[in-house]
């Protein structure tokens, strides 16, 4: 897949004016040219996921089913869409490369083995569930069943998802907001720390889930109680992280800022907070993972809505396929949320790029 234009590029880079070298050209100049063997291997690695995808499709179509399978085309369609998406990605990478930008192709090459593994995993899972029943049906439902039920029960799933998201973000943002306030003031002011520190020391070690039974008893609304629990966990993580971040600010920075005319308030907002940003964002990520745990426990134990509740509810009706469908939705939500946080972090902390490497 597009490996024969390399030598041309090399020559053109050689004649480029060194003073106007772009980052990409520099990299091209300094990385060793790949041997023919390596190029062929790269090509194979990039095409292999397509082979794996076809294997998964053929496995699904050819191997006889061990149990009944309604609406068999859903999974087949999903596989084909998936495969097409991969091929499109490859084509985009190839077009970019022909236009002179190798970056997309390099990323594509880097990710290719994972796609192979994914297709093989799907084929293997299908074989173990639907085809042979080594994982007994319907306790561990096959992909086709999961996709079908997800589609059939979509209205309910979407409603549950929205409920979960609402609860998650409400609790998370309340917790992060309060955590930032207490953490930053504690980090900066000894007097505030004197009062807040004992609370953190006393409440901190208690896992958030411990609160759930208590909240279930005393809270007037379960939703409010769940928000409280999620907020508490997030608050704790953010408070501790931003407090440490702020109190670790090098005193030299404050002195330099003061000789440059910064006043007290500016020392907090222009020096202490930016300096503590890596730590604060670390706390926010941690808060999210604690919020995700808390929300699932809350929904499974008391709150009568949301994906966690949906899962326990499905289990009580022995609808295992629904359980798995909800599991996948949860998985997708948390992945996306974490990814978004990561992107924010990278954007805010771009000044660290040069320092960390």
């Amino acid at each position: 897949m597009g490996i024969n234009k390399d030598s041309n590029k090399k020559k053109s880079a050689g004649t480029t004016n060194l003073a106007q070298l772009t980052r990409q050209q520099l990299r091209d100049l300094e990385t060793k040219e790949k041997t023919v063997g390596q190029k062929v291997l790269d090509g194979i690695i990039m095409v292999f996921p397509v082979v794996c995808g076809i294997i998964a499709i053929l496995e699904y179509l050819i191997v006889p089913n061990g149990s009944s399978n309604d609406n068999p085309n859903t999974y087949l369609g999903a596989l084909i869409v998936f495969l097409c998406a991969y091929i499109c990605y490859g084509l985009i990478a190839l077009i970019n490369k022909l236009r002179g930008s190798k970056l997309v192709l390099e990323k594509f090459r880097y990710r290719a083995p994972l796609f192979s593994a994914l297709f093989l995993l799907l084929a293997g899972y299908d074989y173990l569930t639907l085809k042979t029943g080594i994982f007994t049906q319907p306790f561990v439902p096959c992909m086709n069943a999961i996709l079908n039920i997800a589609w059939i029960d979509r209205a309910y799933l979407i409603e549950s998802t929205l409920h979960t998201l609402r609860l998650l973000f409400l609790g998370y943002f309340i917790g992060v907001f309060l955590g930032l306030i207490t953490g930053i003031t504690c980090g900066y002011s000894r007097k505030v720390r004197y009062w807040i520190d004992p609370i953190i020391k006393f409440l901190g070690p208690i896992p958030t889930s411990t609160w759930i039974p208590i909240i279930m008893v005393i809270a007037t609304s379960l939703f409010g109680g769940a928000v409280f629990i999620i907020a508490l966990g997030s608050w704790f993580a953010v408070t501790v992280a931003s407090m440490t971040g702020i109190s670790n600010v090098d005193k030299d920075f404050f002195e330099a800022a003061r000789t440059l005319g910064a006043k007290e308030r500016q020392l907090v907002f222009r020096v202490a907070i930016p300096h503590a940003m890596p730590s604060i964002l670390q706390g926010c990520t941690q808060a999210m993972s604690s919020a995700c745990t808390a929300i699932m426990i809350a929904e499974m134990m008391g709150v009568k809505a949301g994906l966690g509740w949906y899962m326990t509810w499905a289990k009580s009706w022995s609808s295992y396929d629904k359980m798995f469908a909800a599991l996948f939705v949860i998985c997708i939500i948390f992945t996306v949320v974490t990814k978004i946080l990561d992107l924010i972090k990278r954007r805010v902390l771009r000044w660290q790029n040069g320092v960390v490497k």
Partner: protein
Amino acid sequence: MAKKKKVTLKLDHVSKSFAKIENDEVTHALNEIDLTMESGEFISLVGPSGCGKSTILRLVAGLIAPTTGKVTVDGKEIVEPSPERGMVFQKPTLFPWLTVKDNIAFSLKMQGKLRGNEEKVETMLKVIGLENFRDDYPGQLSGGMAQRVALVRSLINEPDILLLDEPLGALDAFTRMNMQDEILKIWQEKGQLAIMVTHDVDEAIYMGTRVIVMDANPGRVVANIKISEKYPRDRSSETFVRYRNEILNRLHFGGNRAD
């Protein structure tokens, strides 16, 4: 802000003591210091570590207050840091989350004076020849570049007094000599009062109009030597060597210190 106003800096019977952290003892960093300095002077402070040279700068900057005595500028006592007294530290202490340009603009921004003064930032970038690094972060700069940025970051306020706390201490020999000339050039143009702490006797003589020699335990001034040679100075000239010998003698080099 066309012509710089003349200022007189006075240290009047200034003593400064610090409490030690580990025990109840007190360190006497400065003992009864009397000094007068004026605009147009370039003062070099030399002496062994612990003699209180940096303490003097920090007192003048307003970062710390004297235990007894007074530090005044034109009769007005110094109570807090001010951009009128710019300070450059041994570490560049550039804010790593701000670009080079924003670091230089920091002071104007803090004082709410940035709007309408953006060209000043550009001028400063040009002074140190780092126009192409405008949007880089400090993490990507070399030590010399970072220290240049730190220098113009405090110069942008056109301070009456420029305090240099071993600003060249961490640089390699070549960068160091280059920057000595750069600092002298800036100082000669603006004619402010510059006070520089250094460990390097040659640097002190090369740059200063006056070298103040200090000693420790307790920190005190032992000599106040006027250097009347013209700039640029020749590091190997006879007078230069004479000054060096005189200062080294004052610092008791070779002999035992009689306290």
